[in-house]
């Protein structure tokens, strides 16, 4: 009885890498299938645009494919892959910002009707927080995004960003401070509108 070649999805990362490096390009599919969801989700957190997130994730996989020989196995493959992907995403976002907003724009959009519409359509506060994080300076934005992407694991975020854990903690602290200061402003017109929208939604729910 001869052993059949392993299906791509059944291969471990190490086995898939070995096969890819020995010339079997199709083995890379196991890596893509295993890591596509995390990589697309990480990209989504950076850009908030599904199409662009998939494009960015594809670029990350392509980069991983081209540089696979540089993976020495000194760390987990996922660490290497996330680090590479985060670099790709940061470069992409720097090249073409997904949200041309400043932190001020997040709290006080120019068109109040738009703010109301957004507040009604989305979970306004969560969405405001996400938008505010994307409007932070890159180093704080990256620390917060990676920290929550890794389910609040500082060492994992530090490995992905390739910076010391202490730096991640400092950036998290400063980033949160910036967010808090933003959301702690006196009730602006936008906030009142947002509150009104939340209240309207709540009353609508109660009425039903």
């Amino acid at each position, binding site marked *: 009885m001869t052993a059949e070649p392993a299906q791509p999805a059944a291969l471990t990362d190490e086995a898939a890498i070995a096969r890819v490096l020995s010339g079997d390009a199709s083995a890379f599919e196991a890596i893509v299938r295993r890591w596509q969801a995390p990589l697309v989700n990480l990209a989504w957190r950076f850009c908030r645009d599904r199409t662009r997130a998939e494009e960015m994730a594809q670029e990350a996989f392509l980069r991983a494919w081209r540089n696979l020989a540089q993976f020495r196995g000194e760390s987990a493959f996922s660490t290497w892959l996330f680090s590479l992907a985060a670099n790709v995403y940061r470069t992409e976002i720097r090249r073409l910002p997904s949200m041309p907003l400043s932190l001020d724009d997040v709290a006080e959009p120019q068109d109040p009707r738009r703010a109301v519409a957004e507040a009604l359509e989305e979970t306004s506060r969560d969405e405001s*927080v996400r938008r505010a994080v994307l409007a932070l300076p890159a180093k704080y934005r990256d620390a917060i995004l990676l920290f929550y992407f890794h389910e609040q694991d500082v060492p994992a975020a530090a490995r992905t960003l390739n910076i010391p854990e202490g730096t991640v903690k400092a950036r998290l602290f400063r980033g949160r401070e910036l967010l808090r200061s933003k959301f702690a402003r006196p009730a602006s017109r936008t906030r009142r509108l947002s509150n009104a929208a939340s209240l309207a939604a709540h009353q609508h729910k109660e009425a039903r």
Partner: protein
Amino acid sequence: MPRPNSDFVPAPLTDADIARAFSSPRDSIMPSSGFAASVMAAIAHDTAAPAPIPFPWKRALPGIAAVAAALTLLIAAVVSMVRSAPAAPASPVQTGALDTAALLPFLHSTQDTNVAVWTAVTLGAVIVSLVFFRRLLSTR
């Protein structure tokens, strides 16, 4: 239930708010069904693409060496010019008497000695450039 009054202000942002914003199920997406196939197609395309043409260092090396030699000659010529400058007669402009007849000996003395060098360097640079580019463009 929140009350509809004018001084209604939401609670300040907490770490829990931030965590909720990023950990709620709404904050994740599933890759589209064709994503993996699309990545593999891109990889197949990448594999099929011809390797980038490397710079022809072997062909370029003689040209680079010739340019370097020309540059060295140029620098040497400039240095020799600077060294020989004090031997030249004082410029009539510096002496204050701006006379065309008085300028001629100065011009002759500064130019005659270097004209040949400069002409040679310029011709050499042109020839080297021509040879270099012909070599680069010629088929193997």
